[in-house]
């Protein structure tokens, strides 16, 4: 049942390669919609949160050195699986028209299906080797998506993305190998199972080295300062759908790795190194916001804002408090939805005008009032306005960190001023304001029905989570409780 | 280290140095022959020490192979000269990637 979550999109991707033109688009979207439906069914019917932390488990035969094909689904994994399926549908719907006339080729749609399969695998796997395989597998479709269907600087951005994240993954592999070997040396058992390795708790220099290599591996993905410079290029040059998947889901892999692998296995070390790691997260927030203030390209601005937002997630997760970890998990979802909506709308603008610079627009409120309204809504969610989803996540992360290291939470909170400082002038320049010479605002038509439905859906979810996050938090609660119960409560 | 071994080692090192440091193919061929000569000396000496006729047989084989290889090498070098190419190893870089 769980295998279908990654096997079906993969199969769909393969089949899609044999189709052409319009058929491939419809076929791929049908597969994605089916996956979304399946995910929703999975969350309602066989999986019940009270069934335990690891709600659904599927295992296969053991291989060498304790590697075993094992998938499991609990609240956190389910929420990310849902996010993946949902954002895949959103990115397909957002690319419906295609950048040029004629739409995208079949390879485009298959790449996304392969990406969805790999992402599902990452979130589902309970065996570290399977986790690593799926982790690497996400790089390949994304490389093609950026490199073949992106904008002008796509080759360079794709290579940079691939080399950077691959470099980090190598560190992760080394760390994982060292961890498994250490566990074998200590207990005599070869296992790659996340749950069993959680008892490893290596210490000393070896433990520190393992920890650091895993930090590098996950940190490149998050992206944690100073390993973040691949992000602006990759986000900017990717096509709209690519940016949605990249910012919406792929960045969460790093934080997910933190929650699933790093914290349970290294509780003592992560608590002792909290000032350093939390400091890096704070740098993410402040540095990312400051960089965002300087950007003149809409997509680069949102990319740097993602750096800042993920900093909040990391702060929350590192705090070892229920509200912090729950906030970090929730903020992963929130960020996916909010940034997905922002990239989608920037994609709409780019589709219409092939430009995305701040000075290329102006006075869009006259031509496209609905786009102005929804973009403003998403911007307000992004800067953490209470009542929308961004605030709930950020607040819980900050509250958690305030219990752990109050000073760090205070420094991180400065991010809320900076986020207003970089988002709102850009919003005003693009959507309000006067049309400057050379602006392409006259080419912009307002949202059509398909686009309106999409943004209504996303913005409605933002408001719903903002005022009523309880269902999501309840679903996440068992996973949070298992992590925090095993570790330290400061 | 007996004198025979010293002579053999000296010949070998001299030949090695010639191969590595000289650019002209003819010189490298000479160096190769010197290396073979050095190895032959050591092999003969060791065969004598242990009284092993197999070693001497190997020496004869080595001399024969060295002669054949020298002939082939000289032919190749002559071919190069006739073809108008220079005899410097640095200019023969077609295998470069």
């Amino acid at each position, binding site marked *: 049942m769980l295998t279908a979550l990654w096997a079906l999109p993969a199969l769909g991707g393969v089949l899609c390669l044999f189709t052409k033109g319009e058929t491939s688009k419809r076929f791929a979207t049908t597969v994605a919609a089916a996956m979304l439906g399946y995910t929703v069914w999975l969350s309602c019917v066989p999986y019940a949160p009270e069934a335990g932390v690891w709600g659904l488990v599927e295992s296969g035969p053991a291989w060498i050195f304790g590697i075993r094909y094992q998938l499991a689904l609990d609240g956190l994994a389910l929420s990310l699986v849902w996010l993946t399926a949902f954002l895949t549908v959103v990115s397909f719907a957002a690319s419906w028209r295609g950048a040029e006339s004629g739409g995208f080729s079949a390879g485009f749609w298959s790449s996304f299906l392969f990406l969805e399969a790999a992402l599902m695998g990452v979130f589902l796997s309970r065996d570290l080797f399977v986790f690593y395989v799926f982790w690497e597998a996400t790089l390949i479709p994304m490389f093609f998506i950026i490199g073949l269907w992106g904008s002008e600087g796509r080759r360079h951005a794709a290579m940079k993305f691939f080399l950077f994240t691959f470099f980090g993954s190598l560190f992760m592999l080394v760390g994982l190998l060292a961890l498994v070997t250490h566990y074998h040396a200590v207990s005599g058992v070869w296992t790659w199972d996340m749950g069993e390795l959680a008892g490893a708790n290596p210490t000393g220099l070896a433990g520190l080295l393992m920890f650091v290599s895993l930090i590098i591996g996950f940190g490149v993905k998050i992206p944690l300062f100073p390993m973040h410079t691949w992000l602006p290029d990759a986000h900017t040059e990717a096509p709209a759908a690519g940016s949605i998947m990249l910012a919406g889901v792929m960045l969460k892999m790093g934080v997910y790795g933190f929650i699933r692998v790093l914290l349970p296995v290294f509780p003592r070390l992560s608590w002792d190194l909290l000032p350093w790691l939390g400091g890096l997260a704070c740098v993410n927030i402040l540095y990312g916001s400051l960089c965002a203030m300087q950007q003149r390209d809409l997509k680069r601005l949102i990319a740097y804002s993602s750096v800042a937002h993920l900093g909040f997630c990391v702060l929350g997760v590192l705090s070892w408090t*229920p509200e912090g970890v729950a906030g970090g998990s929730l903020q992963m979802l929130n960020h996916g939805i909010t940034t997905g909506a922002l990239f989608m709308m920037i994609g709409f603008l780019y589709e219409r005008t092939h430009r995305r610079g701040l000075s290329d627009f102006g006075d869009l409120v006259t031509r496209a009032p609905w786009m102005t309204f929804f973009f403003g809504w998403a911007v307000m969610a992004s800067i953490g306005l209470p009542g929308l989803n961004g605030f709930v996540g950020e607040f819980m992360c900050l509250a958690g960190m305030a219990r752990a290291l109050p000073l760090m939470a205070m420094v991180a909170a*400065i991010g809320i001023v900076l986020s207003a400082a970089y988002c709102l002038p850009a919003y005003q320049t693009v959507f309000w304001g006067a049309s400057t010479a050379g602006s392409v605002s006259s080419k912009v038509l307002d949202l059509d029905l398909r686009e309106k439905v999409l943004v209504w859906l996303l913005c409605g979810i933002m408001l719903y989570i903002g005022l009523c996050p309880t269902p999501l938090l309840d679903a996440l609660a068992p996973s949070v409780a298992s992590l925090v119960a095993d570790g330290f409560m400061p | 280290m007996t004198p025979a071994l010293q002579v053999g080692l000296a010949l070998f090192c001299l030949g090695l140095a010639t191969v590595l440091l000289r650019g002209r193919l003819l010189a490298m061929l000479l160096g190769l022959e010197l290396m073979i000569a050095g190895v032959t000396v050591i092999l003969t000496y060791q065969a004598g020490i242990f009284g092993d006729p197999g070693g001497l047989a190997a020496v004869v084989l080595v001399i024969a192979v060295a002669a054949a290889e020298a002939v082939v090498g000289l032919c190749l070098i002559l071919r190069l000269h006739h073809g108008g190419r220079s005899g410097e190893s640095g200019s023969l870089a077609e*295998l*470069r990637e």
Partner: protein
Amino acid sequence: MPIPVSVYLLFLAPTAALLVAFFLFRPLRPQWTHWPILASCAVVAAASMDLAAKTYTGWSMDAPLGVWMAAGSWEVYFGVRIDGLCAAVLAMVAVVGGLIHVYAAGYMREDPGFARFFLCFHLFFLSMIGMLVSNNFVQFYLFWEGVGLCSFLLIGFWTHKQSARSAALQAFVTNRVGDLAFLVAILILLKAYGDTRFEYVFGQMAYGGGPLLLLVGVLLFVAAASKSAQFPLYFWLPDAMEGPTPVSALMHAATMVTAGIFLLARSWPLIAFVPGLGTLIAAVGGVTAVFAGLLACGQTDLKRILAYSTVSHLGLMALALGLGRVGIAVLHLIMHGFFKAVLFLCAGNIAHGLGKSAADISEVGGLRKHMPFTLACFMAAAISLAGIWPAAGFFSKDGIIEACLEAGPGWAALALTAAALGAFYISRMLFLAFFGPSPEQKPGHPHEAPAGMSVPVGFLALGALLAGFLSPGIGRLLVKGAMSPEESLALAHFSWPVFAAGTSAAVIGFAAAWFLTIARPRFDWTWRREHPGLQALVASDFGWRHVVAFVVKTSWRFAEWVGGALDHRTWDGFLEWTSPAAVSLGGAVSLKSGRLSDYMWWIVMGTAALLAAALI
């Protein structure tokens, strides 16, 4: 205890009106968008009166409505608290807000953004109500930011004007700085007490707090100072006059800016526990009052005069509150809401009559002939502002002067100076606009405002005159269900020396204004021409605006340096350099040069290495 219907109506009516207006009226009949919204205003006004009446009889409530966020044992709830303090302010907000909604229906009639205006305006109204009835700090923060959002949308309402856009941005970011302080205070409270409900937190005050409480108190004051425009975070308020007049009247006079004072009044049990904080608040308030009062005397735009006047009055409220007289501060908040709204709406009528969005003193003069009704309302409100008996403003200003006289000569000097300045600038505005005209003015000939705009102003003017007689009732209302001690909520008692002091300060201001505007009609223009340096000084708020501009510019430069030089060129540049460096390194140690000697070297080296490894 069951929650009364009025409480539900307070939230449901505006929400329903907004949904109906947005989904039904705006697409189909945008010019009727205001009808559901005005209906909601009426319902809210009735509900708030009902709650005020209930609270007057001694009823109060503090109940949770539902969970907002929860994780493990950590929880944040939605809750409602109705007690005397919030019932009194709520009644004022509902009445003044409703009347300004009616005014706005007339004022914004021809504007193409009519529907958008009313939606934003009513969203603000809903947020303000939500803030007033919150029972914990986090929910208060939710609506606090909501009010800030609506301020942003409404100040920048005319999106084509650059000045409006930058004023909106400035307001939002400056308020965000205060919000940061508020958020950090909430985080500290959560860490220390685990729960931010007012009742719970203030109940813990008895166990002492130490440095943590000091930090929370100071942070709450910084938050209030940014929202309620205390020096040094006041500068966004005069620029916020770029918004339409109803916005200025409701948000930046009567309600939003008083949110900070309300926060301080709500948190008084905490503030009172921190030694010295009250004095700090009073000092900042007093300085603000005098500083802004001086600046108001030199402004030329009608709305800016009133904006600086608002800053000055907020300073007076903070002054009274800091000295421990919370009741007097709240009373002034309520009275100020009435008379300031009237003043702003009259300025709006003048501008509307002239066919513009704002009016300068050079464009008005002698308007008493054309706009007698507006003159009457303006005079009523001016008398109230100056604090002359029996207008409403007298009762609250009298209380402030009494509090300051009791507290010490320095405070008294601040209060009396601010009172005299108040009388001066409002009389100056009255004379310059309605009397004369001075030879320097080129007045238009505005017509009187239509009924839809005059009637609300008239009602509010009546309120500005007569609301003072409600003050004993308000005083009794404030103590019902209060968390602060009774003596802090007490209002002033009449005493002749205080009356004399206040009235003479007002008379001095009035006389000085008469002298400098009627007796010397050209003075207001000649001093600007003859002393351009002084004019520049006043225009830059005695140099403070230069300081703010410098801070903003430096921050942008820093951000540019970080984003451009540091991140892009230096760090990313280094990382990008590694790639071509690796390529050239690979080229340098290439195994495939095609040269025989290279290959020979590799063979020799390899063999030597293998031999070494085998032998060692």
